[in-house]
């Protein structure tokens, strides 16, 4: 455990130093291009990936973010022509939890709030335990959006189930309706609330989070808009995640960047969806944990459904 935190700390430190140097380098480069005087007056900034960086004040210019209404409009519609799917290969997961960490950074979550949660599973008494990353299943027959009284959670054209925390009234009916326990609530003021005060709400990342409203996995819709893979998919060191467009029948592995046919991957590995008997039609597919790359080392938690 202690070892783990130390390793994490070193990793985090490395990541931040790396990111800082990249940003720093970039800013030096751009400052060469634009003839601007460096004041020497620096300011600390948080990048979209959650790293704290320092840049010169003269480098600041207002970002051209879409306005709130425009942002919400395109956020509700989705990305045209796409149909996002995720494939999670359970035989590759060794509980590294990089997905969980990067996700919490991206969506400004408290440590106990998980959009992505790696569960230790054992289906029945005499079967082998395994690790199962579990996020919102982005169901095609979503129980949560049906029950929302104010249309604050909804299904987009591209298959993503999104949340509008400017609309949510905090009734938590969606939490009761979701059989996958995928939803988290902001019971208190969200993490770093003061820091993000006044920041324009980005519906596709559901940030800044708001007290008294719901949050959950969004397939990093903001990153998809920028043609990047979701945070968790990119962060995984073990090649667990495949992500892509079902219309193109292609999914890309976040670790190896290999792209394969979605239908073939699903067919060859006998993929399944969680609790398909409920008829929710998830968009997250699981490949069974056979021939596992890493043995299960956890302890099965007794607090089981």
């Amino acid at each position, binding site marked *: 455990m202690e070892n783990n935190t130390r390793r994490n700390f070193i990793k985090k430190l490395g990541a931040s130093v790396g990111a800082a140097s990249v940003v720093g380098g970039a800013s030096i480069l751009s400052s060469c291009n634009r003839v601007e005087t460096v004041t020497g007056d620096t300011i600390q900034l948080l990048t979209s990936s959650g790293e704290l960086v320092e840049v010169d004040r003269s480098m600041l210019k207002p970002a051209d973010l879409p306005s709130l209404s425009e942002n919400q409009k395109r956020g509700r519609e989705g990305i045209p022509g796409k149909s996002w799917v995720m494939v999670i290969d359970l035989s590759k997961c060794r509980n590294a939890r990089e997905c*969980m960490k990067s996700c919490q950074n991206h969506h400004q979550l408290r440590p*106990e*709030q*998980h959009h992505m*949660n*790696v*569960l*230790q*599973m054992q289906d029945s008494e005499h079967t082998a335990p395994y690790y199962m990353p*579990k996020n919102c299943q982005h169901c095609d027959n979503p*129980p949560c959006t*049906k*029950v*929302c*009284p*104010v*249309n*604050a959670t909804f299904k987009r054209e591209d298959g993503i189930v999104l949340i509008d925390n400017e*609309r*949510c*009234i*905090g*009734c*938590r*009916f969606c*939490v*009761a*309706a979701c*059989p*996958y*326990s995928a*939803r*988290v*609530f*902001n*019971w*208190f*003021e969200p993490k770093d609330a003061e820091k993000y005060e006044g920041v324009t709400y980005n519906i596709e990342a559901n940030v800044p989070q708001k*007290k*008294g*409203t719901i949050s959950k996995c969004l397939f990093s819709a903001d990153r998809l808009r920028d043609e990047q893979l979701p945070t968790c998919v990119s962060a995984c060191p073990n090649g667990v995640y495949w992500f892509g467009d079902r219309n193109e029948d292609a999914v890309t592995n976040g670790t190896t960047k290999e792209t394969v046919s979605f239908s073939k991957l699903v067919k060859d590995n006998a993929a399944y969806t*969680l*609790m398909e008997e*409920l008829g*929710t039609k998830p968009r997250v597919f699981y490949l069974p944990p056979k021939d596992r790359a890493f043995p299960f080392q956890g302890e099965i*938690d007794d*607090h*089981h*459904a």
Partner: protein
Amino acid sequence: MKKIESAEESRKLLDKITFDLTRSIVKKDEMTRFWFFILIMFIGVGLWGWIIQIDKGLGVTGMRDYVSWGMYIANFVFFVAVSLIGFLLSSALHLLKIDWAKPVSRVAEQVAIAGVALAGLIIVMDMGRPDRFLNVFLHGRFASPIIWDVTVVTTYLVISVLLFYLPLIPDLALLRDRMGSEVPKWKMKIYTILALGWNGNAKQYKTVYHAMRILMLLIIPVGLSIHTVTSWLFAATLRSGWDTTILGPYFVAGAFVAGSAAVIILMYAYRIRYGLKDYFEDIHFDQMGKLLVFVSLVYLYFNINEFLVPGYKMKSAEGVHLTNLFSGSFSSMFWIVQIVGLVLPIILLLCKYFRKPLPIAIISVFVLVSAWFKRYLIVIPTMEHPFLPVQNVPENFQTYSPTSIEIMITLFSFFAALMIISVLAKLFPVITIWEYAEEKGIDKKYLSETPKN
């Protein structure tokens, strides 16, 4: 129905009835002040708790991401349940021409109004963003059971208020004409305004009868809907324990049990406090006792269906839930509620002795308290056992226990409901005077007379 022929006798009896039934309005002693002081204290403390909750967030409650509905929702279901008695006593039994229920109907309407008003308020107090309450109307999606609930709860509140008010109009005129210096001026003003210029002619009575009949018919589907829709808030989900088809009638039957108990307690309180022994007679308690046995038997039948059938099969997730209720962490609460709140009252109330006022009032207290815990058992155990394991979260996410703020706000709801009932009892007679007088054989023409003195 016997008719009193002598005018003198009629006037004398009417005077006595009016005197007895307005005692609740006139009576003002230390006890009244103390009672209102207690009510205001608890209401104040509860509202303070709510302000803290709004300021800090719903995290001040024991609810977390897994058990995301707690005591507030259980309490909401309880209040909706209790309010349903208004529809049974003042509409269904009236339409069936069951005479003994007449003096009880105003008590039932008091309970209905207080219950449904508080149910609406509790739901707002449970919201994470009560400031956005208007979104329900601005952005309402009719596919959500919450919108159905909001619709029927408000409709039921309106009909209940009307059903309380319409039979009150002749009484208000009576109070306007007969009450003098013993009631403050502002009360007289209220009576005068609310009496709407009633003078007791045949046409006016006809209009009131007609309107009441329409309302009594209207409240039947609305009354059934409020609790059926409330049950659908649960039945519309996939969770074990809620995902059953009998939840609607199960809730309605349970509601009648809780409501009957509440009405009996209130009848007893009025009988003792306002000296209404001759009005809430032993026979009324006896009949209410029989009614309570009947609705409890129906409820028992649904309980057997609800627990025995899935308990026989023990499907995986359902089995975890049932084991938890039968022999797990909720077992003592479960069995106490079933035995003390359902089985024992049925057995006891079958004996005539226990249908006497005091014993039945005591039994009703147990029934009502059990009814509240029954709602707790409907909401919380199901939420504690989702389909997927609860992992990587702090200890307090796994099991639910209410915090002091939650208890404060729940107590607020009880005392606010009692406040509504108390105010209604202090303002208006607790039994419909004109209906009661008519029942005793007094001709309507004496009602609109102004006494000579």
